């Protein structure tokens, strides 16, 4: 599935009929929050690995293709490797000592702490994509507004998500135009490349601000803000399966917390 087009812009959501696509977006937002909290509360490398596996199962059930799952991991894998490598170097505590390089001691507990932290970061990075792969922008914004976001800010968020691909395309065509005039964006030092980039930023910003003007006229002409309470054509309703999913999500957080903090199981 070509989820990445030439602008580098990635459309994360894809249509689908899995149960993760169908359940209420609010439940999915709560699930992402709770699983993130759970990742912070767990401190045992095995239970964290189990959580990571669970997140991958959910991604698999959401019919995320391999390329999409790789996208969710692409950035964070290097990050995880760096954590594992750098952690023991800065943390000389504990025994047994595995190796000594001058002032640097590599100890076994430090290595395990690094691995634990890396797995936790992996969980926190991937859990987002359960929501992003299965929820359309419209549902996401509507759910956030239903959860208490002011609807004018919700509208601003919806506008920004709507215009993101448009501006990516604008930037692309401006880049092409500048390249046709002989500008090199991929060569030279960081400083030179950044300075060349200004030639792209200025026309992009000017055209974007012009579209903001047009957009505000469009909002005006549709009587935005004419009445204080916003009405909706479709009200999202919690159905029975949403309530069931929500209770599962709550159990996912409460049960490990109970075992860890009440029964003292080292999770």
């Amino acid at each position, binding site marked *: 599935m070509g989820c990445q087009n030439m602008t580098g812009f990635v459309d994360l959501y894809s249509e689908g009929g899995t149960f993760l696509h169908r359940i209420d977006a609010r439940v999915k937002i709560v699930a992402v929050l709770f699983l993130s909290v759970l990742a912070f509360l767990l401190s045992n490398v095995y239970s964290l690995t189990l959580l990571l596996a669970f997140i991958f199962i959910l991604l698999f059930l959401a019919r995320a293709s391999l390329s999409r799952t790789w996208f969710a991991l692409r950035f964070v894998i290097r990050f995880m490797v760096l954590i594992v490598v750098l*952690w023991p170097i800065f943390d000389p505590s504990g025994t047994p000592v595995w190796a000594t390089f001058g002032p640097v001691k590599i100890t076994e507990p430090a290595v395990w702490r690094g691995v634990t932290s890396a797995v936790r970061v992996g969980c926190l990075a991937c859990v987002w994509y359960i929501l992003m792969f299965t929820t359309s922008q419209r549902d996401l914004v509507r759910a956030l507004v239903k959860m208490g976001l002011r609807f*004018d800010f919700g509208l601003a968020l919806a506008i920004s998500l709507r215009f993101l691909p448009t501006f990516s395309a604008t930037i692309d065509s401006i880049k092409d135009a500048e390249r046709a005039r002989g500008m090199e964006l991929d060569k030279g030092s960081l400083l030179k490349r950044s300075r060349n980039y200004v030639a792209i*930023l200025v026309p992009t910003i000017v055209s974007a601000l012009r579209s903001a003007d047009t957009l*505000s006229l469009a909002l005006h002409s549709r009587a935005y803000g004419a009445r204080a309470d916003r009405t909706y054509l479709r009200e999202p309703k919690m159905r029975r399966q949403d309530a069931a999913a929500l209770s599962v999500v709550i159990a996912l957080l409460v049960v490990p917390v109970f075992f860890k903090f009440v029964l003292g199981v080292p999770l």
Partner: protein
Amino acid sequence: MESQAESEPSPVASPEPAKFVSPKTVALYGILAALTAAITIASYLPFSPTKGYFNLGDSMVFFSALAFGCRAGAICGGVGSAAADVLLGAGVYAPVTLVAKGGEGFVAGLISRSGRGKNWAVVLGIAAGGALMITTYFMAEWLFLDVGFGKALAEVPINVAQVALGGTIGAGLTHLIRKSYPSLLKG
């Protein structure tokens, strides 16, 4: 909102005053957040082979803050940068970015506005906002994400370069666009 309505003595006949920001502001904030995200994503690519995390998103955060004030800087910087993080596959950073870049935009806008946009105020605002951003990322990575002191420290030089370049470009952009297209910046 509900608690306010309860505390008001006569809510009966008086029509509730519209509590939204104006359509112009909604459109502007949406567009600026989209622009921040788009530029972060687009500028991430040409720099990616050499510098990993480096991007020019900060220039847009500073531009929003300097041209349209601290609220625009906070909302557009925070939301736009966080959205870019999710879309680049770095979702683990998104909550931290929301706070760090939002704070950066807020402080830069606040200081430059209270100094009436004079040069020293702009420089001070960018420096203070940038320092806040770098500190937030460092503290969040070290204490909150718990990635280890070494990894958190390794990020600091990249962030410093990002603020230095982003701040220069952002201030320059504000100056250029204010000079050439003054009508566009009347927020």
